């Protein structure tokens, strides 16, 4: 079949709970349900954006996929194989194919290693290129990421935030991955530097056919870079779909509120805002039924009791909300 889609990643009913220790004997008194039944797929060579307020479980989702955290339940299928069934050794090799770039380019680089070593360390460890070609390989990767060869001997503190993020990207890229989790990669950078890094990520994607899971709380950046978007709230995906559909026609009341909160750089635009009341409830003790019901302006009786099932509204636009149950 020719129009069968090639999904590089399939996440099914993924759960990640963090036990809360406490009480007199230090036993487990409850769980922080950081990721609570999340399912999605990413097509090879595309970018899926993951948005939502801080604490909703975006980073935990990314890390659990890479097995930087062990899942509580569910499965992660990468290139057709169950990531959680891999042995330690297999996992090590798999890690070269799945990489992560973090938000903070300051703390994620060892201050004691020169840039060249930071980028090349894992390449050597995994024996990815013959020793004779190593130097040239690292130089090429650096050039691809907009770093100069003579930066190799410099240390992270000599670089600006934007350049450090290029180093982080180069380090990930050096392992020749298929898939990169970008966890708020530009959130700590100034807009002009943000643009440079975003353009770099897009160029690398085009050149190498990379797949990204792009985590960000900045909706305009996500709209720009993503092919599909998932909106998370309190550990669950409330809406997923093609970027155009989600932005042009958000369905879930939470997505609507989130989008209406974006400040627009136009002083003539006075927007009608859906101001969300209150704060996000604690993921240790999420509300019953629809987890958004405590802040939802359209909350109905059923919402407080029954968690809404995913509803496909066409074109892969899936929403979890009782408002759309009858369609």
């Amino acid at each position: 079949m020719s129009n069968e889609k090639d999904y590089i990643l399939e996440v099914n009913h993924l759960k990640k709970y963090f036990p809360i220790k406490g009480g007199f004997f230090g036993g487990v008194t409850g769980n922080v349900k950081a990721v609570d039944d999340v399912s999605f797929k990413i097509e090879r060579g595309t970018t899926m954006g993951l948005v939502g307020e801080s604490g909703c479980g975006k980073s935990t989702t990314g890390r659990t996929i890479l097995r930087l955290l062990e899942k509580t339940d569910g499965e992660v299928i990468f290139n057709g194989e169950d990531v959680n069934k891999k042995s330690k050794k297999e996992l090590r090799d798999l890690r070269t194919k799945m990489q992560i770039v973090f938000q903070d380019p300051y703390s994620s680089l060892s201050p004691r290693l020169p840039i060249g070593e930071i980028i090349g360390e894992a390449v050597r460890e995994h024996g990815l290129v013959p020793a004779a070609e190593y130097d040239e390989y690292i130089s090429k990767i650096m050039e691809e990421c907009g770093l100069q060869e003579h930066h190799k001997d410099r240390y992270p503190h000599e670089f600006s935030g934007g350049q450090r993020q290029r180093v982080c990207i180069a380090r990930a890229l050096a392992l020749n991955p298929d898939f990169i989790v970008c966890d708020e990669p530009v959130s700590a950078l100034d807009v002009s530097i943000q643009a440079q890094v975003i353009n770099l990520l897009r160029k690398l994607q085009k050149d190498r056919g990379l797949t990204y899971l792009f985590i960000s709380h900045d909706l305009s950046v996500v709209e720009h870079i993503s092919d599909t978007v998932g909106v998370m709230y309190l550990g669950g995906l409330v809406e997923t779909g093609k970027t155009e559909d989600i932005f042009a026609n958000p369905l879930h009341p939470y997505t609507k509120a989130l989008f209406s909160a974006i400040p627009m750089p136009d002083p003539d635009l006075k927007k009608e805002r859906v101001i969300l009341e209150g704060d996000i409830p604690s993921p240790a003790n999420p509300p019953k039924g629809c987890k958004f019901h405590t802040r939802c302006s359209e909350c109905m009786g059923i919402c407080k009791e029954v968690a809404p099932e995913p509803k496909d509204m066409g074109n892969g636009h899936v929403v979890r909300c009782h408002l759309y149950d009858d369609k």
Partner: protein
Amino acid sequence: MAKKNVNYISAKESRKISKENRKITKEFEAKRNRKHIPEEEYITKMKNPENCVEFDDVHTYFFTDIGTVKAVDGVSFNVPQGKTVGIVGESGCGKSVTSLSMLQLVQRPQGQTVSGEIRFNSGDECVNVVNAPASKMQELRGNKMAMIFQEPMTALNPVFRVGAQIDEVIKLHRPEMTDEEVKARTIEMLGMVGIANKEGVYSMYPHELSGGMRQRICIAMALACEPKLIVADEPTTALDVTIQAQILDLLRDLKDRINSSIMLITHDLGVVAEMADYVVVMYAGRVVEKGTAREIFKDPRHPYTIGLMKSKPVVGQKVDELYSIPGSVPNPVNMPDYCYFKDRCDMCMECCNGEFPEEYYISDTHMVRCYRCKEEGERHE
């Protein structure tokens, strides 16, 4: 001759610099710490009594061991009464130092406002805060001017209950109030900043509250004395957009209610567009463009302002590739003697090799420091 690396300084040079710095800062400190500072040194007149604040060619420098950082280098702008002025620019351009200069909270002794005037109209008098003695500043801060920081935890004391902290501020400035009255006022303030469970929150500790709630507490604390001026330095940068929307709404609403002015510092153009009546764009310690919000957003002229606006993706506007300003900000201790933006500017012309462009006014309110606006500026005069 070998090319001198401007980023490198020998230990000997550094010692020499730090010795000179000590001499300079000592002089400033001595002047400030005099027992009696006569009123005529700091009581002054506004150029325009309609203004709440007038920044007039302010220079705030840091005398560091690697050289002098001209963090604020000749900044001038006004904050009219009851209006919001947004100050934008990339990190390190001097936004925070501008706001700290306003409150005279620049880290001393290495940080000093070395020249210029910052005139503040408190309603009763006009004070040049640059020369004002510490006692005067203490009286003004919190009473007539208040500050809201990016990270609310820095403004809150973790070991005291939030209610008591707001009580403290009110007591300091309204000594005639009884304890009951103070508490009632605090609870009223908590309600005003949109805290539902105000009696409960009154006796909570800062760590028991979310980031958004803490920022509300800081706002309550800042507004408790109905200040004439609110200086908000990235008040919503650490918050989610939904909470940001709440806080901005709140600030707008409260400002109108007590008719104060706001100096809003942010790197987010969207926030500025929503909040500000006037916009000041800073680059490397200088104001490169200023005007009404409409002028800056609808008709930006400085290549830096234009670049900033183009590099930020906007929801609903699809572009293939984002514009990105090439290069990075010049070294703050070694600024060039031509337009600071020239090395990154893609609209640069022959004449840009000359000295840093002057202020060209292309309307009564719209100022641009770029040679591209020279002719239009001269025509306007």
